[in-house]
């Protein structure tokens, strides 16, 4: 019984490992990024593109949604979020530091969540 359980565990682990090794070269994500205006749009997109492996990044001013397509062999959505938080824009997962936020020009100082 114990062996069976172990065996099943092993199976699950190997399956998940397998799933991880098969990485998507065109993985599509939509995440929310806080910001206000066209300047924010430029900054957010620029930050996303600065991450190697990001193929497409477009942030919509009205919906605050960032659409990205990334090569998961080279990067992850987390890395993109970190890069965006670094230039002063919050995502749901990664908050920007106060310093970076304060550095934003006045029109870009969005209401923080």
């Amino acid at each position, binding site marked *: 019984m114990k062996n069976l359980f172990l065996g099943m565990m092993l199976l699950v682990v190997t399956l998940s490992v397998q799933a991880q090794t098969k990485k*998507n070269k*065109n993985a*599509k994500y939509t995440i929310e990024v806080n910001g206000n205006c066209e300047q924010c749009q*430029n900054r957010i*997109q*620029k930050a996303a*593109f600065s991450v*190697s492996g*990001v*193929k*497409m*990044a*477009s942030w919509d001013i009205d919906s605050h949604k960032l659409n990205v*397509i990334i090569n998961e062999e080279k990067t992850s959505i987390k890395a993109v979020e970190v890069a965006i938080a670094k230039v002063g824009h919050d995502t749901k997962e990664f908050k920007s530091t106060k310093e970076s936020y304060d550095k934003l020009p006045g029109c870009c100082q969005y209401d923080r969540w």
Partner: protein
Amino acid sequence: MKKQISILLLSLLCAFTSYSQDTLKVVKVVSKSKGLQKSSKITANTTLVTSKELLKAACCNLAESFETNPSIDVNFSDALTGTKQIKMLGLTSPYLMIDEENIPSVRGASQAYGLSFTPGTWIESIQITKGAGSVVNGYESISGQINTELIKPINNIPFFLNAYGSSDSRFELNTHFNAKLSDKWSSALFVHGNARTAKKDMNDDGFLDNPLAKQVNILNRYQYYNAEKGWVSFINFRYMNDKKQAGETDFDPNKDKGTTNFWGSEINTERFDVSSKVGYVFKDMPYQSFGFQNAFNSHNQDSYYGLNQYNIKQSSFYSNLIFNSIINNTMHKFATGLNFTYDKYQEFVNVNDYSRIDNSIGAFFEYTYDNASNFSLIAGGRVDNHNRLGTFFTPRLHIRYNPWEKATLRVSAGRGKRSANIFAENQSLFASSRTFDVLNASGKIYGLDPEIAWNYGLSFNQKFKLFGRNSDIGFDFYKTDFTKQVVVDLYTAPAISGTHQVLFYNLNGKSFANSLQIDFNVELVKHLDIRTAYKYYDIQTDYLSGSSERPLQAKHRFFANLGYETHITDKGKQWKFDFTYNWMGQQKLPETASNPIEDRLPVYSPSYSLMNFQITRTFSSTFEMYFGGENVGNYKQEKAILGSENPFGSTFDASIVYAPVFGQMYYAGLRFKIK
């Protein structure tokens, strides 16, 4: 084996379902409130003319769709055919690339009248690009590109009706039908008819001011759209038949054709078009796609101008394969592909046979860099092999930079090369006593060499608030330098006095066209927009008789357009008012000094102004009526036809037209939709 297949099928299914719908860009209907849109984010100097703008001047076809737009000058063609010619940067349509849905449309045989073969109601939008343009569609454009998008079946309303009538006895009827054939197929049928039935001679010179005309134009198009799989396709079938009769009011073609009883002209054109487009957007990669376009058309014009016979039939095939993708990310995009063009011309000028076959094959690569904020660049090049133009390279470059907020600076440069279809492009000159003389014989196109020009442009635009209202100011400066050109010479005095000629020869010396446009646009009060533009043209060519400005080209022009709209009420009721003012400076006229004194024209035409207006009353979202006037100041050219008393004599010339012939014209029409 069976298992493998089922696994394959399963994975395929998974792949399809995981491919979400929004990856394929849906063709967007432009519903913004502005009629002329100029984005500060696009690289080339392109203005988008929306369907809303096109409604401002309701009459009637593509040639007449530019009246409210300062980038393009609408000119008057010969006094006979009434077809309007357009100019951009001071150069006529042969130097523009005119596309319909990115397939070259007005070219070769259709150069003179082609713009009047697309009814205005069919047009969804027009993109006008000043300067060199993109390499994707070809090497021919020199001063600009005009691309017309027709209404797409997929988002069209089921029924549309437009009727139009005017005081110069022109009547038009447009009906559009649209049907959704399945969830992926849609179809549209556009039927256009126009006629001018009454003979009018307002200036009493014995000649019709506008030709009698009849046109039937039918377009049937099918659109396939599959968002899940990323496929989109168009198939178009089109038939057009256009008949014009011009000349003396007493001219009866059955009795007088080919005689000197009365001077008359008939121009009959029949045209078939079949075209197809297939586009595919790769799964999970909205930035990667390919497109394949094919177009076949047959254009057959039978015509005579007095005793001059001119027949041309052009059978063409055009094919374009394009692949779009990215390098690393969407900041670096590229387009690459192949073009193929085949043109069979059967051309007869009186008894001379100029029939020929032209073909070319080319490959292009265009790189786009966009830093996603304030800088972008398009660098393109293509290599073509043409049986008459040889093998040649065409580079083009566009740069856009936003130095500070709401400011756009653009630079462009590029090369264009083309063969001049001297007869088709200058056929208005057949309506004169001129003899056509080609002075060169060694070239491959009527004995002449191909035309080559470089175009350079610089433009700047700044948007700002004036008393809290949206305004913008800007300038465009463009320079076109011809290194080779076919000169059309109307200045050189004939060797035998009392005769007239038009000379065609290879440029020997300099030829250039400089243009400067200064724009100022402001919303004066809410819903009241004013557009103004001043344009300066310095266009000079070295003729045999010396350097001179191009004939029939005003050096100074001023343009103003006022548009006012009332608020749309709940029931969709609205008034729209539109007024356009054009002032044209003096234009140099062709040589007439050797004529007897009564048939001489001054060296320069007088300057004059023109005013058009239109009032539209929308009764609901499905019904509206409009009323308008053109040339309401009633300016008319004195002596529209030189030597009209003796049309078979040596001084006869109906091609020197610098102003309207007809005078004021009023029109009214209605539009009805079923949504």
